[in-house]
């Protein structure tokens, strides 16, 4: 180059100073900066390539790194700290009716097979509903049932008990208590044996918990 000699007349800043300059440029620029660009912006006679080696070493192990992007350079977050750049927004939603009913049936009737749940709910249980309850950690797959086809059963987990403040699933209030609490329609079903007539309402439950 014609002006090479002319430029060498100016004394280049010390390498530590060049390092500072690159640090500032890489920080303030939105795009990665090429060596050529760096050289163009720094005082004549600067050696950005060498200064970069120093700068890069200085940032080793730090929270940000001097990285090469193609033929340009940039400052980026250290990979192991990427989690800091994420903000978790927790959204709380109510369980769907299908899910809460399925959960209730599992809790009251465990171990319960899918067929049993469907029989009690009167509708089929979508795979998603049980998956969701399992994902929530409230329901897990229990032992297979000793019946034809050996279907899997579902049981509630310790996390379920923890969430609902129960010591055991047996602590769940029975129908009689539900009615006393006003949760059951007290109107006697027409022509039917009234529900919760003393102790007859839980008859199918104890054995279900018994064989665990």
């Amino acid at each position: 180059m014609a002006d090479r000699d002319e430029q060498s007349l100016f004394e280049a800043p010390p390498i530590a100073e060049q390092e500072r300059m690159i640090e500032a440029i890489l920080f303030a620029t939105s795009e990665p900066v090429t060596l050529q660009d760096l050289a163009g912006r720094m005082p004549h006679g600067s050696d950005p390539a060498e200064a970069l080696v120093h700068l890069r070493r200085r940032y080793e192990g730090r929270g940000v790194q001097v990285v090469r992007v193609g033929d340009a350079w940039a400052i980026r977050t250290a990979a192991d700290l990427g989690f800091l750049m994420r903000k978790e927004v927790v959204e709380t939603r109510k369980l769907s009716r299908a899910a809460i009913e399925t959960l209730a049936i599992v809790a009251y009737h465990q171990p319960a097979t899918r067929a049993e749940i469907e029989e009690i709910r009167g509708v089929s249980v979508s795979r998603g509903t049980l998956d969701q309850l399992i994902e929530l950690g409230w329901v897990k797959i229990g032992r297979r049932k000793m019946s034809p086809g050996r279907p899997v059963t579902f049981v509630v987990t310790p996390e379920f008990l923890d969430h609902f403040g129960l010591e055991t699933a047996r602590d769940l209030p029975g129908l009689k208590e539900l009615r006393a609490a006003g949760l059951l329609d007290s109107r006697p079903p027409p022509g039917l044996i009234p529900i919760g007539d003393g102790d007859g309402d839980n008859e199918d439950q104890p054995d279900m918990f018994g064989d665990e």
Partner: protein
Amino acid sequence: MSGDFEEIGQSVGDRLAAEALIVDVGAYEGPLDVLLMLSRTQKVDLRQISILALAEQYLTFVEQAKELRIELAADYLVMAAWLAYLKSRLLLPPDPSEEGPSGEELAAHLQFQLARLEAMRESAAKLMGRDQKGRDFFARGLSLDVERVRRVTYTATLLDLMQAYARIRTRDDFRPFVFDRDAVMSMEQALDRLRPLIGHMGDWADLSSYLPTGWGEDPARRRAATAATFAASLELAKEGHIDIRQSETFAPIQIRRKTRDNG
């Protein structure tokens, strides 16, 4: 000769004074600004300034503006009137019967105002002389926005659980009297049925062709199955698995598998 000389001398002096005073009224930010400019000619601390002399200077300024037919805004004239009044208060011996602040108090306050305005001017200059962001120092050029991750947690209370169970049990007891479940098909059933079929769907086909066998004859069952299948197909369309169309009102509803390119 000498008279002429004097005359010329005076007119030069007047001209200089006029030039010094009347630069351009539009350049002043109000009477206080003019007073501040005039006070600088006294070359003393603003707190020591002679308000009497300043009032004199200001009145001259207003007079000259009038001579030059420069129209002064009302507040310049109000200030002139006030300074004329202040001047008389300062010159005349105090009248003990007069209420209100003395001429000295008023003059002191004007000194304070001038000093305060000048202090603010200097501070403003110092402020603007500081290193400024975007000019002398810079913020990060590349702002990584914090990525927001949505996590959904589901909650339910023991009460929800009990109510749900109570609901089911109550329904059970009523069931033989309320429903004839034979003719009821739930959307979930229809969904379970349709889902595995999506993979086999070809081009547009009537929804009715997807009704389960055995549900097409009895009108009640057919109605239930059609409704459930339709609801299920809407759900699948919402999930992006199928397309759904109807050419006009009451025309057959058609569905097909969604083509992959836009999904």
